[in-house]
C-alpha cells in the first residue's frame, strides 16, 4: 500500500516536472495549444546556449522542439515588467528538475524499509521511468526523451565508473585480477561470439522473423553489444545484495574490464558491417586483435598516467586545500575523456586511474577534502545511476524506435542466459585449477545469474547506424527487453536466490588493528616462504611491488610528512577515531534516553545500542587510549556519572573564562563588560539549544571521553593550568597590543598537520605526542577571520584528555539539557566550538551591545571590538585573567564586586568568583528561547546575586561541584 502510494506520489511529481518543461509549465490540457507559441523561441534560443553539459540534454529534447513548425514568437513589443524567460533558463532548469525528480523519487521509496529490501532501487527507477515516459507520451503524443548516448557516455557513465574505480578495494581487486581478466576477456568474447552465431543460426532456421534484416556480421555486432555485463546494473543490484567480497569483486571487476572487449568488438563489427562482410580482408581480423591490445593496454596506461599526475599534483596542494577535491574530479574525468579522445577504453582508463591514485591522493589530501571527494563522488554516482535507470524506463516507451520480434527477443534472452552460465562454469572449472580458494557451485550460480545487462548495451544499440544495420529497430527492442529482464527480473530474484542458496554474505565488519597487523605480517610470511621455495608466485610479486612502491613511488607521489608515517599507524588512528565516534554515538543515545534522570545512572545499565557488551567494553577501554598515556581500566560507573554531569554543564554553562588566553590580549580589554558577554552567551546558548532541538540527537554524549576526561582531566588539567599560567601572566602583562595574534610558536609546531584537522567532523581525536596542539587554526586564515576564531584553543598544556574531548571541536554538539541543581565549574575547552556557533549565531542576531562603557578602557575596547565582533566576547576572558593578580580591575558589569589589589589569595579569590559568575547564571533553568533581540537588559540584573549566592553557598550543597579552588 505504502509503496503504491509512494509510486503515485512520485508519478505525480515526475509528471509535474515533465510537464513543466515539456509544456513550459502550462497544465497538460493547455500543453498542446501552448506548444506552438512558445517552443520556437526555445528552439531559437537553444542555438545560443553555450555548449557543455547542457548540449546533450538538449539533443535529447530536440525532437520535441522540432516537432512544431515554427510560428513566430509572441514575445517582444514594449518593455515588460516581468518577463517569461523560460527559454533562457530552459536547459539548466530541465537538468535541475530531472535531478530533483530523481532525488525525490529516491527519498520517497526509501521511506518504506520493507519495500526497498525486496525491490532493488534500479527496478523502481525503471518503473518510474516507464510511468514518466508513458505520461509524457500521453500528454504529448510524441515520445520525447531517450537515454542519449552522448549524455550517457560523456557524463553519466564516468561519474559511476569514477566512483567505483576510486573506491575500488585495490587489494581485493588485484588479488582476484586473474579471474576478473579471464571472465572479462574470455567470457565476454565467448558470450559475444556464441550469442551472435546462434542468433544467426536461428535466423537461418527461420525462428527469427524475416523482417529482421541482417547477415552474420549484424548478428555478431548485436551479440557483442548485448553480451557485456554492465557495470551500472551490477553495481546497482549487487550493492543491495551484499554477497561476499570476492564474488562481488569478480562480477563487478568483470563488468568494468570487459569494456575494452566490448568497445573493440563493437567498433570492429561496425566497420565490418559498414564495408560489407564480403570486403573484409584477413588482415582486418588481425587488426582487430591488435586494436584490442591497444585499446585495453592504452586505456590502462592513460589511466595510470593520469593517476600519477593526480597523485603528484596533490602533493603540492597543501596551501590550496579548497581546490583539492577539484583536482581529483578533474583529473579523473580527464583520464576518461582522454581515453575517449584516442578511442581507447575509457572505462579501463577511469578504473585504473581511480585505483592507482587512490592510495596516494588519500594520503596527500586533507581529511576534509577526503570527505568532500567521497561524498561528492557518491552523490554524483547516485544521481547518475538514478537518471540512467529512469531514462532507460522512459526510452522504452518510445515505440517509434523499436520493432518487436518475439523470436529474436526470446532467443536472445535464452542465449545470453545459457551462454553466460556455460561460460562461467567452464571458466571457473579452468580457474579452479589455479585458485587457492576455489569458486564453488553456488558462486558460479550467482555469477551466472548476476550477469546483468544495462545501459551500456542500450546506449551502444541506440548508436547503431540504421543505414548499415537494417534491423536496428528490432535490436533496440530486444536490447530494451534484455536490459529490463536482467535488471528487473534477475535483480528482483537474485536476493531471494542468494538467500536460498546461502551464499556467504559479505559482512560489513570493521577491520581491527589486529587484522591490519596480521594481514601485513602474513603477506611477508607468505612472500618469504615463496622465496624460500624459489617460486615467483603472487606473493613474491606483490612483495616486490610493495618494496618498489615504498622505495620509489611513495617517495615521489606522497608528501614527506605523509609517507614517513607508517600505514599501520594510519590504520591505528583511523580505527581509534572510528571507535571513538561509535562510542560517542552510543553514548549519545544513552543520554537522550536518560536525559532527565541524569544523576541516577540507571539508564546506563540498559545501554541498548551496544550490540555486545564485550565490544562495548573493549571500545570503551581501548578507545580511551587516544592519547599517549592510555588508560587501561574501564571507568567505574560513578566516574562516568560524574563526568556525564560534567558534560551537561559544559555544554550549558557560560563559557568558563580561560586564564590562558590572556597572554594574547592586552589587559586593556579586561574591562569590557562581562555582563554583556554573558548576556550574549545566554542568548546564544538559548539560540543554540533551539537550533539543536531541530538537529538529530547524535553526538551529544561523549561517553568515552567523559571517562577519559574524568580520569585525566580532573587532576592533570588543574596542575597544568597552575604551572602554565604564570609565565603567561607575565607576558600578558607587558603585552599591550590589542590585536589578537593567537598563535604561539610552540603551538605552530603542530601546524603542518593542522589544516587536516577539521571542526565539522564532529570529533577530532588526536593521538599524538603532547606538545602538538590539535586545535589551532591554520596560519593561512586571514587576519580578520582570525579575530573571529577562538584564540588558540589549546590551553598552555592541555591534558591529553582535554585535547581529545569532542566538544572542543564539535560544532555545537554540546548537549541541550541542563540539570538545574548540579552545578560545577569546569574549565573546559569549549572555545572553538563555542566561537563557531557564536560567530554563526551572531550573524543571525543583532550586533553585540557594546554599551555602558564604565571605564575609559572600555570605550577603547569597544572601538576595537566594533569591527571584529566576536573578539569582544573574548576580551573579558583575557581581561579578567590578565588583571588578576596585583591589579584587579573593576568589573563594570557587576559594579559592586570589586576586588582590591591585595595578596595572592585575594586576587585568586576574585578570579574564581569572576569565573563562577557565568556559571551561576547558567545554573538557572534554561529560559525559554528568547527572541533574538531580547538579550540586552533583561538578563543583566542577575549575575551579582548569583555570584553572591555562589560565594556563600558551601560547595557541599552542590553534589558535583569541585569547589572553586580547584580552578
Amino acid at each position, binding site marked *: 500500500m505504502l509503496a503504491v502510494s509512494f509510486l503515485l506520489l512520485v508519478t505525480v511529481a515526475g509528471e509535474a516536472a515533465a510537464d513543466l518543461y515539456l509544456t513550459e509549465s502550462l497544465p497538460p490540457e493547455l500543453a498542446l495549444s501552448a506548444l506552438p507559441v512558445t517552443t520556437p523561441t526555445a528552439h531559437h534560443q537553444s542555438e545560443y546556449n553555450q555548449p557543455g553539459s547542457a548540449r546533450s540534454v538538449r539533443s535529447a529534447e530536440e525532437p520535441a522542439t522540432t516537432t512544431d513548425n515554427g510560428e513566430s514568437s509572441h514575445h517582444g513589443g514594449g518593455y515588460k515588467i516581468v518577463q517569461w524567460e523560460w527559454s533562457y533558463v530552459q536547459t539548466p532548469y530541465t537538468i535541475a528538475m530531472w535531478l530533483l525528480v530523481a532525488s525525490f523519487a529516491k527519498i520517497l521509496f526509501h521511506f518504506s524499509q520493507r519495500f526497498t529490501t525486496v525491490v532493488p532501487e534500479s527496478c523502481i527507477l525503471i518503473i518510474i521511468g516507464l510511468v514518466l515516459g508513458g505520461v509524457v507520451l500521453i500528454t504529448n503524443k510524441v515520445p520525447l526523451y531517450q537515454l542519449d548516448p552522448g549524455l550517457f557516455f560523456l557524463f553519466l557513465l564516468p561519474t559511476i565508473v569514477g566512483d567505483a574505480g576510486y573506491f575500488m578495494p585495490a587489494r581485493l581487486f588485484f*588479488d582476484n585480477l586473474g579471474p576478473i581478466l579471464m571472465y572479462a576477456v574470455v567470457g565476454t568474447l565467448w558470450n559475444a561470439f556464441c550469442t551472435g552465431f546462434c542468433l544467426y543460426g536461428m535466423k537461418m532456421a527461420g525462428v527469427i522473423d524475416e523482417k529482421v534484416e541482417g547477415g552474420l556480421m549484424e548478428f555478431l555486432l548485436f551479440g557483442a553489444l548485448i553480451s557485456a555485463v554492465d557495470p551500472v546494473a551490477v553495481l546497482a543490484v549487487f550493492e543491495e545484495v551484499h554477497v561476499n*567480497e*570476492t564474488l562481488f569483486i569478480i562480477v563487478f571487476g568483470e563488468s568494468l574490464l570487459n569494456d575494452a572487449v566490448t568497445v573493440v568488438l563493437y567498433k570492429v563489427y561496425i566497420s565490418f558491417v559498414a564495408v560489407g562482410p564480403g570486403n573484409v580482408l584477413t588482415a582486418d581480423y588481425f587488426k582487430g586483435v591488435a586494436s584490442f591490445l591497444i585499446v585495453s593496454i592504452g586505456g590502462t596506461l592513460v589511466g595510470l598516467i593520469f593517476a600519477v599526475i593526480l597523485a603528484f599534483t596533490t602533493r603540492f596542494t597543501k596551501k590550496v586545500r579548497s581546490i583539492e577535491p577539484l583536482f581529483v574530479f578533474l583529473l579523473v574525468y580527464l583520464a576518461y575523456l582522454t581515453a575517449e579522445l584516442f578511442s581507447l577504453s575509457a572505462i579501463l582508463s577511469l578504473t585504473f586511474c581511480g585505483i592507482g591514485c587512490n592510495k596516494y591522493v588519500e594520503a596527500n589530501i586533507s581529511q576534509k577534502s577526503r570527505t568532500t571527494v567521497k561524498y561528492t563522488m557518491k552523490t554524483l554516482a547516485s544521481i547518475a545511476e538514478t537518471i540512467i535507470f529512469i531514462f532507460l524506463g522512459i526510452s522504452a516507451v518510445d515505440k517509434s524506435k523499436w520493432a518487436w520480434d518475439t523470436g529474436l527477443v526470446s532467443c536472445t534472452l535464452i542465449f545470453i542466459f545459457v551462454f553466460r552460465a556455460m561460460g562461467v562454469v567452464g571458466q571457473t572449472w579452468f580457474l579452479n585449477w589455479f585458485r*587457492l*580458494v576455489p569458486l564453488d557451485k553456488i558462486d558460479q550460480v550467482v555469477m551466472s545469474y548476476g550477469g546483468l545487462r544495462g545501459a551500456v548495451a542500450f546506449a551502444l544499440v541506440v548508436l547503431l547506424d540504421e543505414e548499415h544495420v537494417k534491423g536496428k529497430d528490432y535490436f533496440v527492442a530486444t536490447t530494451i527487453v534484455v536490459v529490463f529482464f536482467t535488471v528487473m527480473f534477475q535483480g528482483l530474484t537474485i536476493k531471494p536466490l542468494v538467500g536460498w542458496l546461502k551464499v556467504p554474505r559479505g559482512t560489513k*565488519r570493521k*577491520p*581491527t*588493528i*589486529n*587484522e591490519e*597487523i*596480521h*594481514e*601485513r*605480517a*602474513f603477506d*611477508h*610470511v*607468505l*612472500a*618469504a*616462504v*615463496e*622465496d*624460500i*621455495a*624459489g*617460486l615467483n*608466485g603472487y*606473493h*613474491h610479486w606483490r*612483495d616486490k611491488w610493495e*618494496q618498489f612502491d615504498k622505495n620509489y613511488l611513495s617517495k615521489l607521489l606522497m608528501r614527506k610528512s605523509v609517507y*614517513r*608515517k*607508517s600505514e*599501520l*599507524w594510519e590504520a*591505528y588512528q583511523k*580505527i*581509534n577515531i572510528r571507535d571513538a565516534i561509535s562510542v560517542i554515538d552510543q553514548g549519545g543515545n544513552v543520554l537522550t534516553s536518560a536525559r532527565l534522570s541524569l544523576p541516577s545512572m540507571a539508564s546506563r545499565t540498559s545501554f541498548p545500542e551496544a550490540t555486545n557488551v*564485550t565490544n562495548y567494553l*573493549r571500545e570503551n*577501554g*581501548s578507545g580511551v*587510549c587516544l592519547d*599517549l598515556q*592510555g588508560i*587501561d581500566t574501564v571507568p567505574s560507573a560513578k566516574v562516568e556519572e560524574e563526568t556525564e554531569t560534567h558534560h551537561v554543564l559544559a555544554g550549558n554553562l557560560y563559557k568558563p573564562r580561560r586564564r590562558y588566553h590572556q597572554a594574547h590580549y592586552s589587559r586593556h580589554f579586561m574591562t569590557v563588560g562581562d555582563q554583556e558577554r554573558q548576556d550574549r552567551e545566554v542568548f546564544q546558548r538559548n539560540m543554540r539549544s533551539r537550533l539543536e532541538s531541530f538537529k538529530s540527537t547524535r553526538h551529544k554524549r561523549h561517553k568515552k571521553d567523559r571517562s577519559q576526561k574524568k580520569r585525566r582531566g580532573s587532576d592533570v588539567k588543574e596542575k597544568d593550568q597552575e604551572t602554565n599560567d604564570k609565565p603567561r601572566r607575565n607576558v600578558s602583562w607587558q603585552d599591550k597590543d590589542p590585536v589578537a595574534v593567537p598563535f604561539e610558536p610552540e603551538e605552530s609546531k603542530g601546524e603542518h598537520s593542522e589544516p587536516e584537522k577539521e571542526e565539522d567532523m564532529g570529533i577530532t581525536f588526536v*593521538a599524538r*605526542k603532547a606538545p602538538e596542539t590539535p586545535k589551532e587554526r591554520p596560519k593561512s586564515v586571514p587576519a580578520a577571520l582570525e579575530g573571529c576564531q577562538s584564540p588558540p584553543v589549546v590551553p598552555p598544556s592541555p591534558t591529553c584528555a582535554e585535547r581529545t574531548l569532542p566538544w572542543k571541536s564539535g560544532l555545537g554538539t554540546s548537549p541541550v539539557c541542563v540539570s538545574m541543581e548540579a552545578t560545577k565549574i569546569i574549565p573546559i575547552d569549549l572555545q572553538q566550538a563555542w566561537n563557531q556557533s557564536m560567530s554563526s549565531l551572531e550573524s543571525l542576531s543583532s550586533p553585540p551591545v557594546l554599551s555602558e562603557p564604565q571605564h575609559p578602557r572600555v570605550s577603547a575596547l569597544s572601538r576595537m571590538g566594533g569591527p571584529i565582533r566576536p573578539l569582544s566576547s573574548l576580551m573579558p576572558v583575557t581581561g579578567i585573567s590578565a588583571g588578576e593578580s596585583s591589579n584587579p580591575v573593576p568589573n563594570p558589569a557587576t559594579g559592586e564586586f570589586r576586588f582590591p589589589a591585595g595578596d595572592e589569595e585575594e586576587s585568586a579569590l576574585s578570579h574564581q568568583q569572576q569565573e563562577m559568575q557565568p556559571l551561576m547564571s547558567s545554573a538557572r533553568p534554561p529560559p525559554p528561547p528568547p527572541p533574538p533581540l531580547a538579550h540586552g537588559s533583561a538578563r543583566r540584573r542577575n549575575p551579582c546575586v548569583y555570584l553572591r549566592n555562589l560565594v556563600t553557598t558551601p560547595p557541599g550543597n552542590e553534589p558535583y561541584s569541585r569547589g572553586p579552588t580547584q580552578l
Partner: protein
Amino acid sequence: MATSHASATVSSHAKAAPYPKLHDSRRLSPLLEWMRHHIEPLESLTALETTIFKDCTYFTRKEILRLHGRYHELAPHLVPLDYTNEPDVKVPLALIVNMPELKENPFRTRIVESFSEDGMGNLSFNDFVDMFSVLSEMAPRELKAIYAFKIYDFNVDNFLCKEDLEKTLNKLTKEELTPEEVTLVCEKSIEESDLDGDNKLSFADFENMISRAPEFLSTFHIRI
C-alpha cells in the same frame, strides 16, 4: 594424519616442542627401514620415502621431489642428492636468511626459526617440507593458526605478549614508528583480542581473533 594435526593444541606443552611434527622418518618401522635401504633410489628420494612424505604431508610425490630439489639447491654442498643414508642433514639458518630474495623480508629469520625443530633455525628436510605443508591449501585452519601463532611468539612462552607484538610491529614498520606509537598500537591490539584480560594473547585469544575474520587464514596459502 590430518586429523591428528587438527586435534593438536599448542598449549599442552611448554617450550620444548608443543607443535605437531608432520613427519618423522626416524620413527619408521624396522620393516620400512629395511625397505628403504634395499629398494633402488628413485631420483633423489627413494620411492618409499616419497610415499612416506606423501602420506604424512599434503603433497604429492612430484611436489615432494620438487621440494627436495629446492632443498638441495639451498645448500648444494650440504644436502646430498641421494638422500637415502643421511637423514640428519640440516641447512643452517644463515644460509636461508642470506638469500638475496629474502633480503628485504622482515620475517625471514623468524619464519625459519619457528619452522625448525630445534628452534634455532636449522632446517632439516622434514622441517622444510613441514613449512610448505602447513601453508598448502589442504592444511586445516587450526594447523595454520598454530604456526601463525608460533611465528608471532618470539620469546616462545606460548603467549603473545607485548614484547612479541612490539617486535612484530617493528619488523612490519621497519622501525618507523616511535616507541610510544608502537606501544599504543600494541595496547590497542591486545585490548581488541584479549578475552581473559591477562594483557597478553593466549592461543585461544589468537584463534578467536583469527576466526572472527574468516577470510584470514584462507589466504594463508601458497601453492608450490
